[in-house]
């Protein structure tokens, strides 16, 4: 088995008294697509910054490509591509120039950088935007340019911190398609997200993170199997009545979650549960049967929903 690309053992990052990351351990194999799923403030970005050899850890062990970020920061970063949560393209330069200056940071010769820049503009579907000002790009285009920039050095590992947050559905799908291609080419991806569909689409394996610690680890399918049921029935009775009605359900589903706006009933057969509820004389305003998702896993593990 090839050596893991990333090994984190009891990783801790403290800011004063506050532990942003509180003892996280995980390994990522070459070519694997690994996700950190969790709500805002879970410690995902801090973990990414430590793996990115930018932020120094308070304690624990960390090796990227077999090197310790404390002593080999530049060497590690030379093999990474980083897509930060907030775009930090240079708005004073044009689109293509952003790639040119960034490539030089990796010690790549000018001519090679120029060739790579043109290839990547094509990959990011920005060929005709090379001379445009960065500020004239849409949010989705800026993200794609940031990804192109992160790929300028042909990285071993691509770190993506909430790559599609704030993008419209169409822009997200274009981005997913590009990331999927990278994955097919064998690039190791480490990404954070609070979107369940994104994690399910892109991650081979993931950890659910909350309050700086790992709650569960596995493939999306495994996690759903372990922590949820096959299907979920969602019923709504109006905001003030949900909990009151749910208290009167008896023998409905394997498990229930009462949220302020709806009641979730976990079961292998959602339709059957709905029949049982209506037969008992309850009249939900709306009802929906769907497949279980990582959202349900997260709810089960933490008692909270991912996006609040």
């Amino acid at each position, binding site marked *: 088995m090839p050596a893991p690309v990333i090994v984190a053992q009891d990783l801790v990052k403290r800011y004063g008294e506050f532990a942003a990351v509180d003892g996280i351990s995980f390994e990522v194999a070459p070519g694997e697509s690994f996700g950190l799923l969790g709500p805002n403030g879970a410690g995902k970005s801090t973990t990414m910054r430590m793996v990115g050899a930018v*932020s120094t850890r308070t304690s624990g062990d960390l090796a990227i490509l077999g090197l310790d970020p404390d002593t080999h920061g530049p060497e590690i*970063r030379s093999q990474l591509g980083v897509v930060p949560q907030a775009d930090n393209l*240079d708005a*004073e330069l044009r689109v293509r120039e952003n790639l040119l200056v960034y490539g030089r940071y990796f010690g790549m010769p000018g001519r090679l950088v120029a060739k790579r820049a043109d290839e990547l503009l094509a990959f990011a579907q920005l060929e005709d935007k090379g001379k445009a000002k960065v500020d004239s790009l849409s949010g989705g285009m800026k993200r794609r340019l940031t990804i192109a920039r992160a790929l300028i050095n042909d990285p*071993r590992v691509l770190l993506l911190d909430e790559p599609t947050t704030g993008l419209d559905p169409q822009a997200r799908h274009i981005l997913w398609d590009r990331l999927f291609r990278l994955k097919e080419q064998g690039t190791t991806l480490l990404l954070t997200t609070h979107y369940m569909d994104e994690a399910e689409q892109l991650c081979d394996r993931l950890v659910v993170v909350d309050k700086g610690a790992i709650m569960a680890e596995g493939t999306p399918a495994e996690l759903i199997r372990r922590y949820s049921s096959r299907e979920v029935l969602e019923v709504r009775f109006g905001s003030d009545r949900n909990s009151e009605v749910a208290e009167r359900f008896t023998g409905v589903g394997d498990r229930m979650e009462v949220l302020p706006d709806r009641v979730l009933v976990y079961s292998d057969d959602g339709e059957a549960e709905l029949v049982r509820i209506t037969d008992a004389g309850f009249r939900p305003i709306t009802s929906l049967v769907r497949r279980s998702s990582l959202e349900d896993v997260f709810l089960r593990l933490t008692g909270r929903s991912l996006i609040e």
Partner: protein
Amino acid sequence: MTERLSTVSADPATARAIAAGRRTRRWGAWYVALHRFRVMKSYTGTVVVAGIGNPLVYLYALGVGLATIVDVDLDGVSYLVFVAPALLASAAITVASEEFTYPIMLGYKWNPTFTGMSSSPLRPTQIVDGIVISVAVRMTVNLVLFLLLILVFGAAPSPVAAGMIVAGLLGGLAFGTVLMGYTSTLEEDTGQLAMVMRFVVLPMTLFSGTFFPLSTFPIWLQWIGWISPLWHSTELARVFSFGYEEPIWLSVVHVVYLVVLIVTGWAWARHIAVRRLGR
């Protein structure tokens, strides 16, 4: 360091990483400077127009205009010759106050390009070094233009007048690196930078023996000149420009004082960069 690097591991991925980090470890600061030159290129017009226009206006107004009504013996030279080196030294301070304030704030906060750079093999200290290098180059360009105009005005009689460039550069960087250190500490600009312009840069220009010798000021105002990098830089420039008479130890003090400021400011800016970008 090299020794330790080469003995780390035999894993090909690790070996590749170590090889790839080498160039940036050595040349990183220069790569940052190249980036800054590209940004400066977008305002070349401003650099050149300000670099020629400003001296032209000042030399003409003060040296030719004001000089006709200033009738004092200033170390035996005309007012134009007296004021020209000071104007050159102030030009370097102006460049420093442009380049070490808003662009730094921009890089850390408003358009956090420094964060982007710190994800590359660059080290935070190289980002600082690269910026200082690029500004030093821009400053030199401005100073050379200024010197040429002074020569056109015939206002620098000494054969070693070109030494003014060194004096100006020392003064500009002494003030600039300290300013960079200060700007780097700002999490937010709630008017601090405007305050610096108004209450540091402007008084410094007025009380640094720019337009009149410092000795004409009351003693309780002269201390501003003594701590002002502009005064030290101006006096040094005058020595080069027209052989201004001052004891040699004082010239040495000028150089030492400016170099100490540069080293201190530079180290401070590096220290903040490491802390701020490595959070």
